[in-house]
């Protein structure tokens, strides 16, 4: 019994020593700039470490050979053990001496050892809930990637254009300025949008980036309508319009881009706006494009319900108000009157 306890104790202490030694070595190996002298010291230290390892291994092998029957053998074994422990101790003090003279940049690491023993109050940490979230998230990613994979396999993308292979053409094409409208730093986009919002008193614009760099604008136009707008840089990729009394939130409180308005008017306006952004696609001057789009054309929808059609003078046509705005004059028109 006692012997096994001693062995246990030894093992513990040795393991601890070893780990600290390993750390020390890691420390000593870290500094990159060294003189010759230091290099020699370092090599010496490494040799000492190897020696120490050897002696430690010997202690362990001695121990593992133990557990003998006769008293004599036991005594012998204990002597052996003492010897090897002594030599190990010498080696260790040698190594410690030399390691102190070695330059070290990371003294802090040794402090971390004390932290290992600290038992964190698991109840206080956010770890379990974070883990659940991470788990749910990975599951979702997995499922979505499956779907994506299926969809992509059905429709293989062919991006290479065969006409580009021609010799003269290809070099010209490659030299052309790559379009940059989609690749504009977030801060620039935000300053432009902020200044836009200041110009338009009863329009509020909130910017969010739910997935990476593409930004989603939620625009509330007076008390007339709400819209979401997906921007890539300054390029308007998608517009969806809903009523002032509707919202763009899915059941779990996230932005829902795709669901249609429950009113026919806004469905129609959404369609017409998607058509309208083709007109406002002008990658050479991206900033001006988005300014004119929001400040003028989109803003002219403020009067969606109040303005009569500029052609027929009436308000209703087929149950809808004048849902189109002329690009140049911004005059309200029924879909059938334009």
């Amino acid at each position, binding site marked *: 019994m006692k012997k096994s306890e001693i062995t246990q104790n030894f093992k513990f202490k040795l393991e601890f020593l070893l780990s600290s030694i390993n750390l020390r070595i890691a420390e000593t190996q870290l500094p990159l700039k060294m003189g010759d002298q230091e290099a020699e010291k370092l090599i010496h230290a490494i040799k000492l470490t190897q020696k120490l390892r050897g002696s430690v291994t010997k202690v362990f092998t001695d121990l593992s050979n133990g557990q003998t029957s006769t008293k004599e053998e036991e005594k012998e074994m204990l002597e052996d053990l003492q010897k090897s422990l002594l030599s190990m101790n010498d080696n260790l003090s040698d190594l410690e001496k030399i390691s102190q003279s070695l330059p070290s940049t990371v003294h802090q690491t040794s402090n971390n050892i004390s932290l290992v023993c600290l038992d964190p109050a698991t109840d206080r940490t956010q770890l379990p809930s974070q883990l659940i979230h991470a788990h749910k998230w990975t599951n979702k990613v997995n499922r979505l990637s499956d779907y994506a994979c299926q969809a992509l396999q059905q429709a293989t993308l062919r991006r290479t254009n065969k006409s580009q292979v021609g010799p003269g053409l290809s070099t010209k094409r490659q030299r052309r300025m790559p379009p940059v409208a989609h690749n504009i730093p977030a801060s620039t986009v935000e300053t432009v949008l902020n200044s836009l919002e200041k110009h338009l008193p009863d329009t509020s614009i909130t910017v969010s980036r739910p997935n990476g760099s593409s930004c989603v604008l939620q625009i509330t136009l007076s008390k007339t309508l709400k819209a979401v707008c997906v921007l890539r840089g300054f390029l308007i990729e998608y517009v969806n319009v809903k009523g002032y*009394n509707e919202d763009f939130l899915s059941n779990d409180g996230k932005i829902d881009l795709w669901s249609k308005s429950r009113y026919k008017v806004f469905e129609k306006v959404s369609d017409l706006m998607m058509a309208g952004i083709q007109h406002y696609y002008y990658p050479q001057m991206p900033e001006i494009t988005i300014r004119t789009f929001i400040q003028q054309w989109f803003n002219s929808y403020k009067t969606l*319900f109040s303005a009569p059609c500029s052609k027929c003078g009436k308000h209703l046509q087929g*149950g809808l108000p004048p849902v189109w705005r002329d690009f140049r004059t911004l005059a309200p028109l029924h879909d059938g009157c334009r």
Partner: protein
Amino acid sequence: MGVVCIFSYAVPEGKSGQQAVDMLQKNVELLGATRSGNFCVDCETYQSNSQNISQRLIHILHNSEHPASCFAALDTGTILVSDLLFDVLMSKLTAAKTGRESFYQQRKGFRIESRGQRYELWDFVIKIGSVSLASNFKGILVEVEYCPCVVASDCWNLIKEMAQSIVGNVADNPPMYIKNKTDPVYSPSDTVNQYLEHFNNFRKTAPQGQPSR
């Protein structure tokens, strides 16, 4: 919930109330509207009972368009919108136990309601209701709602064009309540207020005794 305008449609001479309702329904169906169930707006009135409380009326209204809500309108103009269970709270106020009188009591024969067919047409909801006071026919109320918009002054002209094609020149001017409204955003209690105004008018004409159907 959009903007609602309610018009009182006078029954043409020589016609019964039911005939007038039938005619309106035919009109609306010719426009292409589809039936979408029945509707009912009812109103019950309570008055304060004791000397200690100042004289006060509480009108309790229910609107089938908001089936989980109860509207409590005071004669001061305050309208409380609450859950349907408010009726239970009201019953505590009106409960009289032996040896004591209640705080409020119901006015007998004052229950008034507008009941009829609900139609949907594009983004509009049209309701043709016949009003009855203590089960006597009193008149016809036509409700036109434009759902996508929340500002009454913005879409009045849209509603006007639609309403005129149903009830004619009754709809030339917006209802007084809509005209005098200060808060731009329309809310369900505004609808209730309009109904209450019409109901009160019908109740005032009660003593003359109109021909019932």
